[in-house]
């Protein structure tokens, strides 16, 4: 993948299995977010393919791409809630666009989604009126609106205190277990990585390629020094 002539990462090859909690790791600026954007269909990779159930996303027709994207839920770094809509309207928008549900039912489901992320009763608030952690959770409620098969998270715990961050991790784990969704997240929060991930890829900025993939707990004891250092915070 590259921006113009500037190559960020090359020769990436990894598999995310259904039901995985998959972490994209690596130092700052190594291309984690770019990789995520290519997986969710925002940026086209300069070469190669992104396969979902064996189908290349970028080779598919625009209609098929939209259909595929509908099975994604994405939580952006800062929540990316639409600032002119209330939380309820934010969560309701995908439901209004992509389902034929009646307004009453949409209202019920929106309340349900908000209560799942612990924001029951905040329907009428605007994004500018709630805290950063609440924005993240509201963003999660919106990402889950259509019961996606795959949830993507860009730095879910960035900017959260350790407790909120742990609660968000537990929430992610709970949602995976109960909804059976696959989860792909970009993070360098070690605590989260060990707490929830069971699969990962490690991108290296120096060699511009991936240097490890697999369960982060195993990688922490593995034989790739850079990854071990990263996961043990340079110590031990």
């Amino acid at each position: 993948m590259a921006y113009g002539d500037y190559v960020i990462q090359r020769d990436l090859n990894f598999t995310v299995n259904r039901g995985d909690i998959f972490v994209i790791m690596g130092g700052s600026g190594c291309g984690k977010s770019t990789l995520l954007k290519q997986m969710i269909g925002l940026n086209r990779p300069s070469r190669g393919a992104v396969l979902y159930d064996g189908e290349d996303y970028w080779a598919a027709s625009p209609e098929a791409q939209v259909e595929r994207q509908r099975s994604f839920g994405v939580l952006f770094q800062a929540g990316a809630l639409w600032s002119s809509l209330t939380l309820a309207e934010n969560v309701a928008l995908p439901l209004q666009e992509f389902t034929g549900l009646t307004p009453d039912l949409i209202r019920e489901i929106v309340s349900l989604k908000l209560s799942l992320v612990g924001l029951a009763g905040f329907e009428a608030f605007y994004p500018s009126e709630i805290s950063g952690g609440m924005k993240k959770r509201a963003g999660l409620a919106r990402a889950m609106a259509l019961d996606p098969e795959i949830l993507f998270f860009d730095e879910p715990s960035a900017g959260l205190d350790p407790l909120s961050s742990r609660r968000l991790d537990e929430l992610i784990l709970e949602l995976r277990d109960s909804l059976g969704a696959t989860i792909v997240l970009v993070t360098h929060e070690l605590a989260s990585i060990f707490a929830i991930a069971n699969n990962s890829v490690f991108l290296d900025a120096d060699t511009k390629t991936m240097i490890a993939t697999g369960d982060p707990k195993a990688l922490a004891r593995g034989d790739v020094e850079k990854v071990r250092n990263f996961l043990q915070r340079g110590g031990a």
Partner: protein
Amino acid sequence: MTVDDGAGEWRDRLVIDGSADAPVVRLTGTWSLRGPVTRYVEIAPRLAAAKRVSLGAQDLKAWDSSAVNFLAALLRDCEARKIAVDQTALPEGLRRLLTLAFAVPPPASVRGTPQAPGLLAALGQHALTVWRDLPAMVEFAGEITLSLGRFCTGRARYRRQDLGWLIEEVGPRALPIVSLISFLVGTILAYMGAVQLALFGAEIYIADLVGIGVVREVAALMTGIILAGRTGAAYAAQLGTMQVNEEIDAFRTLGVSPIDYLVLPRMLALLLMVPLLTLYAGIVGILAGMLIAVGVFNVGMYEYYNETLTALELKHFAVGVIKGTVYGGLVAFAGCLRGMNCGRSAQAVGESTTSAVVLGILLITISASVLTIVFHKLGI
């Protein structure tokens, strides 16, 4: 008992049996948001006599939020009626989601969906907003004056590069649109005048009409309105977006006055460039008039030139430039005011940009009338 036709809808997905006071509600088939969705209210009457409810999901093939939503509504209703619900037969995922949904009770002091105000109330609220707006405008004007004072005594902190960039943005880059508009307006004036003057065979006075009209009034007015749409809107959008990103707060916490740093250079750029743009617009207007008079109404080029020189006096230029400068200042004021007082959302940026243009044009029109009367009384 009446036959309920709607019942067929939910029979694909629900089986209700057991006795009336201890019904068993079983989810079956496929529950999907994409298909027909069953709501709890549809079957609520069937549980009206229940004292205890058991839930089950033996033949449930696939489920999503629609099932969770149904069960959550059922649980909420049963809780309100103090009826025991046996959930043990539900799949684990469903049970955990339900626990999660009820884990955090809504805070007691949360506001509901706001009611839309009535027509009269909305009118009153609007009037109040406008009324409250006035002190804010006066305050902002005061802050700008103080900042200009600091600038004159050399104590204002701002970046020279910014000023240079802003001047380029306001002045040279506005030339194409100013040229086009003043050329067209000059043409219109010449035609309008010529048709009347030709009745008396006095086409030569097109020069007076266009010259004085454009230089005194029209050039300044057109420049002001172009700048309101071009620069005032840009100022409001720039400052408004900075407000959204908390960039203006970042200046404040550094002890740097955002008025000095952001508003002052913008005011200065406009105040410096507007007189030049007004003069330029005047000249383009005159040339357009000449083109029409010479080309269409057969006035001699030299005669037209001479007539223009006789008609125009320095005071006409002075009046035009003073007006233009005032309009420019007002446009910068409206743009910066709306930008600095912008709310923190994308919609607020849009509103403040719109409002900057509207306020700018409003202020221009008001000051145009006032200045015209003042200059008339002064006999200039």
